[in-house]
């Protein structure tokens, strides 16, 4: 009743959507047998997002519903990406240490530090990464 258009019979639309979703499921399974290298995740997530959008727009009526609900739902996606994005950015850029103004140097420093520590003797000072629980 939120929009009177939705009081019509939409069975065909829904059935078509289901069919599309099933086809996309087939495609994503098929695609997983091919190796796109680092793009594997991207391909899988792209297909999943297309499917998710179909579900949200048609099954969840966002297409015809009041825009506020779409805003709310998109909001959750935006904030989830912020959460994921910042955490990933931190972990990705953490391994690089700065030795000069805004120049980022790869691994080396850290590896050297490790070697040095391994070489220095006392018992019980084994590098913690090697400790097993």
């Amino acid at each position: 009743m939120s929009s009177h258009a939705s009081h019509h019979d939409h069975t065909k639309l829904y059935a078509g959507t289901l069919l599309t979703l099933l086809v996309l499921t087939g495609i994503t399974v098929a695609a997983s047998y091919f190796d796109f290298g680092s793009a594997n995740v991207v391909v899988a997530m792209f297909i999943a997002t297309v499917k998710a959008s179909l579900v949200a727009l048609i099954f969840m009526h966002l297409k015809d519903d009041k825009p506020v609900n779409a805003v709310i739902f998109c909001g959750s996606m935006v904030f989830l990406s912020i959460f994921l994005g910042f955490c990933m950015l931190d972990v990705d850029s953490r391994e690089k240490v700065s030795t000069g103004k805004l120049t980022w140097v790869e691994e080396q420093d850290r590896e050297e530090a490790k070697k040095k520590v391994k070489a220095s003797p006392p018992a019980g000072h084994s590098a913690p990464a090697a400790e097993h629980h």
Partner: protein
Amino acid sequence: MNEWLRSTLPIVGSEHARDIDTFYFFVFYLSLFFFIIVGGLAVYFPIKYRLKPGETRRSAHITDNFFLEMLWTVVPSLLCFVLFFWGFNTYLAAFTVPNDAMEIYVRGRKWNWTFEYPDGMAGGGTLYVPLNRPIKLIMDSEDVLHAFYIPAMRIKQDVIPGRYVYMTFTPTVKGEFQIFCAEYCGKDHSGMLAMLKVMDDAEYEVFKREGPPEYKTMDPKLIGETIYKTRGCQSCHSLDGTKGDGPSFKGIWGKTEQFADGTSGVVDENYIRQSVLEPQAKVVKGFEPVMPTFQGSLRPVEINGIIAFIKGQK
């Protein structure tokens, strides 16, 4: 005002600390300026526009003022840019390691700090560094999070188990400075202290050779005990007779031990010295040859201390 403000900050131990203080003063005066405006008006208006007896309550109808609102949106925004860049630049300085930095390995555990120097020597309780030499601290933790904090250098870094983190400073003032643990780590968090001692080159050479100056006045037994506790001996050698990865020190002095190679010998000064420097030479029967050598990482005075310490374990 400046004098008082300086007294609210710790002693200055490096150029970096002085830079931070300058920045700190800037932010302080900036804040003071805004506080006087806001706070002053927040007190002045209620007095000035107090409803006086006999007055009607009709007030001015002012809904907004574009210019004013823009003013206090844009000016603070610009100031924020300044603060950000100033803060970022001075921050990089604390983590930009000069090429010739001396690397010291710092390890935190509940509830003390140990330091290992480039020449392999190590110690706990006090970090000794030469004056005017850039220092890079490479740090990790044995158990939980700690934070290595030297107020005089205005630097601090959490130390994390399973990962190395670092920070750097160049001491420009001789003296002793406090070191704190700043990340909560349990019962004796507030007792996890250490000192930073900045020495001139001559003093530092002596330190390298003969160990910390206080060794001169310390009972050798106590030196031995410190080594025992801070250099990992205690993880294999107990003091109460329990068998660890190595023989217990309890009552070991003067005992005749059977060795893995079939020979035997008395535990005396020479044997202990040899065990520390060439641990694989004479392994007591029933133990694995797992002890690492301390060749080059213990000073003679420290080995003597260990001997005195073991002598005392009756």
